[in-house]
């Protein structure tokens, strides 16, 4: 029996043709942004320094170099330890946010998100101030050193905490109160309710959070670079091979090794998500936590502690950036914000970042939303839509460093007609949009799936072209999701280091990259200052979004009111 039913050939309307052309164009763009650079990277791993094909020689040499192989083990070790710390911590925090009566819940929620607005090297810098060779609390380490695995893990916990908390908050927020009532009526103990109702309900969230944290740690570059000391990991190896030794082939090989665990984690996540069914049916009654003194006190204390830790790290970076000469002259100054003293680009790199982030937000949102719409609403054309779907999911599994490396090989290749993009702002925007494509695409697709699937049928029956309904109805309805995507892209473009570190030219250097360079040159305070400027910018944009959402768009969207 065949699944393919030889059917009647139905004619294509002008809408169908336009949509299909759009899907083909989108596939071509994604192929250029993702597929071909990754292919170029893969191919590079099989070439020697002169570009001759050498088969697996590079891989053989990689796995027989103990120092390199050790980095892979180090990466796995750091990722595992961080995951084991962050996930329980984030679970308790998310539990406090969703299942207990917490005073000033919104504030605790906001504080838990702060690390998202910072480049990953910020916690590294703060730890140097706190526990470094001249750190405040160095004595507490009792002769140990913060440079190395301990420092990396602490900084990673800070950096990964909001991601895990967000996932687990979502997982715990969707609970059916009636399940709990049923369990209580049956005389179940609190402990047993937790293990038979709460935990199974959050199971997929826990798995997802663990995989996301694991991937973030494996692929992050900034933290290990700043505070890793002699403790090498895969991400710093790629950087050293490419920037330090100009050994692109070996860099490509390390990149491929870096790709493996990230891709594996991604695959596991997809498999797990597929098994997940909606726990919350339309008829579910949302769970509203009732006050309970002992529990609420415990969780308030816990949240205070975690928030204090987050604020200490951020505060330390801010304070450090304002101090004249650590630790000898603690008087305050703004000298460290005069970036021209530390980096040839001065404040230009900051403005480059803002321009790049704006470009990525505008171009990326347009591409992601229109692309998701084309892929959701095109009739038939399954094969091509499958290709687009695959390409849209690909970036989730690809570390930024790997993608950045692929861009060098692809766009810098002699004879590539797109070579003119190399070393321009354009390539930075393109790379950033590609790097963060999956989340934007998913946000758009989810929003589109939630609106009535019959809008297009109604338009067709009224003989209104589909693009008109897109402009007049679909896009306005999805405005909140569109803004979410834009803000997400802006913030990530401001803070990302990994994917763009190979791609900037002297006049397009970004703030996050400049911070890495300044830190490399030994000026911690100025690097911290640059990180602080980045945090303030992305947090301000997010705050503007929230305020606009509350006041401006409420007025634009009167139709939502009943």
């Amino acid at each position, binding site marked *: 029996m065949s699944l393919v039913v*030889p059917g009647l050939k*139905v*004619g294509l309307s002008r*809408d*169908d043709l336009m949509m299909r052309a759009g899907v083909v164009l989108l596939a071509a763009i994604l192929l250029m942004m993702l597929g071909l650079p990754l292919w170029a990277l893969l191919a590079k791993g099989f070439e020697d320094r002169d570009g001759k094909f050498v088969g697996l020689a590079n891989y053989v040499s990689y796995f027989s170099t103990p120092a390199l192989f050790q980095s892979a083990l180090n990466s796995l070790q750091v990722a595992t330890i961080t995951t084991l710390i962050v996930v329980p911590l984030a679970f308790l925090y998310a539990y406090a946010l969703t299942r207990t009566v917490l005073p000033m819940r919104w504030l605790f929620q906001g504080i838990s998100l702060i690390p998202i607005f910072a480049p990953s090297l910020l916690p590294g810098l703060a730890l140097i101030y706190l526990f470094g060779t001249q750190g405040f609390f160095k004595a507490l380490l009792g002769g140990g050193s913060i440079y190395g695995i301990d420092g990396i893990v602490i900084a990673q916990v800070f950096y990964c905490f909001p991601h895990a908390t967000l996932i687990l908050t979502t997982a715990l927020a969707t609970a059916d109160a009636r399940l709990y009532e049923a369990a209580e009526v049956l005389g179940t103990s609190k402990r047993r309710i937790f293990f038979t109702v709460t935990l199974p309900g959050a199971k997929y969230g826990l798995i997802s959070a663990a995989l996301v944290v694991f991937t973030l740690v494996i692929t992050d570059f900034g933290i290990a670079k700043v505070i890793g000391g002699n403790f090498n990991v895969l991400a710093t190896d790629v950087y050293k091979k490419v920037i330090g030794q100009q050994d692109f082939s070996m860099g490509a090989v390390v990149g491929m090794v870096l790709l493996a665990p990230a891709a594996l984690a991604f695959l596991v996540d997809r498999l797990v998500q597929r098994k997940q069914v909606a726990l919350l049916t339309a008829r579910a009654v949302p769970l509203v936590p009732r006050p309970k003194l002992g529990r609420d006190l415990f969780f308030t204390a816990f949240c205070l502690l975690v928030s204090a830790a987050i604020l200490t790290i951020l505060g330390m970076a801010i304070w450090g950036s304002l101090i004249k000469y650590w630790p000898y002259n603690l008087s305050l100054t703004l000298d460290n914000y005069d970036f021209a003293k530390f980096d040839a680009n001065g404040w230009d790199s900051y403005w480059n970042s803002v321009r790049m982030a704006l470009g990525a937000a505008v171009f990326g949102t347009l591409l992601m939303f229109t692309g998701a719409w084309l892929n959701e609403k095109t009739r038939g054309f399954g094969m091509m839509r499958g290709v687009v779907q695959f390409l849209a999911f690909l970036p989730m599994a690809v570390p930024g460093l790997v993608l950045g490396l692929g861009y060098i090989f692809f766009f810098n290749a002699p004879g590539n007609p797109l070579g003119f993009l190399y070393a321009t702002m354009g390539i930075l925007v393109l790379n950033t949009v590609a790097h963060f494509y999956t989340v934007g695409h998913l946000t758009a697709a989810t929003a589109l799936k939630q609106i009535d699937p*019959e*809008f297009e049928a*109604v338009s067709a029956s009224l003989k209104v072209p589909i693009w008109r309904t897109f402009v007049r109805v679909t896009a306005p*309805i999805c405005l909140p999701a569109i803004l979410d995507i834009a803000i997400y892209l802006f913030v990530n473009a401001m803070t990302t280091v990994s994917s763009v570190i190979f791609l900037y030219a002297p006049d397009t250097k970004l703030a996050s990259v400049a911070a890495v360079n300044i830190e490399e040159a030994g000026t911690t305070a100025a690097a911290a200052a640059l990180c602080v400027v980045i945090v303030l910018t992305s947090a301000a944009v997010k705050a503007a979004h929230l305020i606009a959402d509350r006041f401006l768009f409420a007025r634009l969207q009167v*139709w939502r009111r009943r």
Partner: protein
Amino acid sequence: MAAMTYYLEVRNLSKRFGDFTALRDVSLDVVEGEFVCFLGPSGCGKTTLLRSIAGLDPQTSGTISQKGRDISALPPAQRDFGIVFQSYALFPNLSVTDNVGYGLVNRRQNKGAIAKRVAELLALVGLPDAGPKYPAQLSGGQQQRVALARALATSPGLLLLDEPLSALDARVRLRLRHEIKALQRTLGVTTIMVTHDQEEALTMADRIVVMNHGVIEQVGTPQEIYRRPATAFVADFVGSMNFMAGTLVAPDRVKVAGVDFACPPQEGLAPGQKVSLCIRPEDVRVRDLPANIANRVPVEVAELDFVGAFCRATLKAQAAADVAVTADFSSNLIRDLGVEIGTKLDIALPPDRLRVFA
């Protein structure tokens, strides 16, 4: 007499989804100006047939022609129909006026003409003042009327209604039934409505198409469907029906539990065949039975279910306790005859009201 040309002709339509057959060789004719209901349980293929006619889910094989034009392979945008969905599919960010005028703006009419037409349509569906409101500010019934006005705005030749009343509460549903029917009669627009509600189909349709498992079981007027169901499925699905297992002993006689019943002469059924003998509960006679009446059965009242206006009685044959029929007893009858559980009485099954199915 010239051969009648139908407004809509569906010929040998089949639709498969993978290994699942949703429509099996369906043929159907619809006369211009007619109100046709597709009736059947969920999964019977009624919505698939509607969506094939609209071009939204094209058929696997077969042809559809509308007003003599073969539309089988046309995309929806090139067909002539207006559609109303169960979800209404109103554009939430557009006002009622903009929703109703959505299809008009595209036809290069001037603003004044559009505004006039929209006002006319809103008056037609009984919502003359709703123009500036947004869909979320309207009740379900009002939203459905706006959806109807939007579908009618471009004066389509064919109006398709996909379970338009299912999402409404019972009272609103009753009122809208009459309004939609009256509107359809006034405009004379050929209309096809999908529903799983038999009462809706019986009260609204000029003709009902009863479907099951992807095939048409019967096409007929509401009276035909109710009085002379063509198959056991139709008999069971539309209204209530008693089924008694028996054997055909002569073309016009069925034996049930040893008792012979007279019935209308059966063609195409051979004597000796196992059959079901059927009668509707309201057709069972109790009062004033003449002495020589056919199909008289002495029974005992086994159960009495109060349903409000009447009682549904379960009656067991005195001769054979495993044969039971239900009958509708009015309150008057129960009082006059003093019926209660255990009462013994005689009933008659009028032969012209009996149906026999293989």
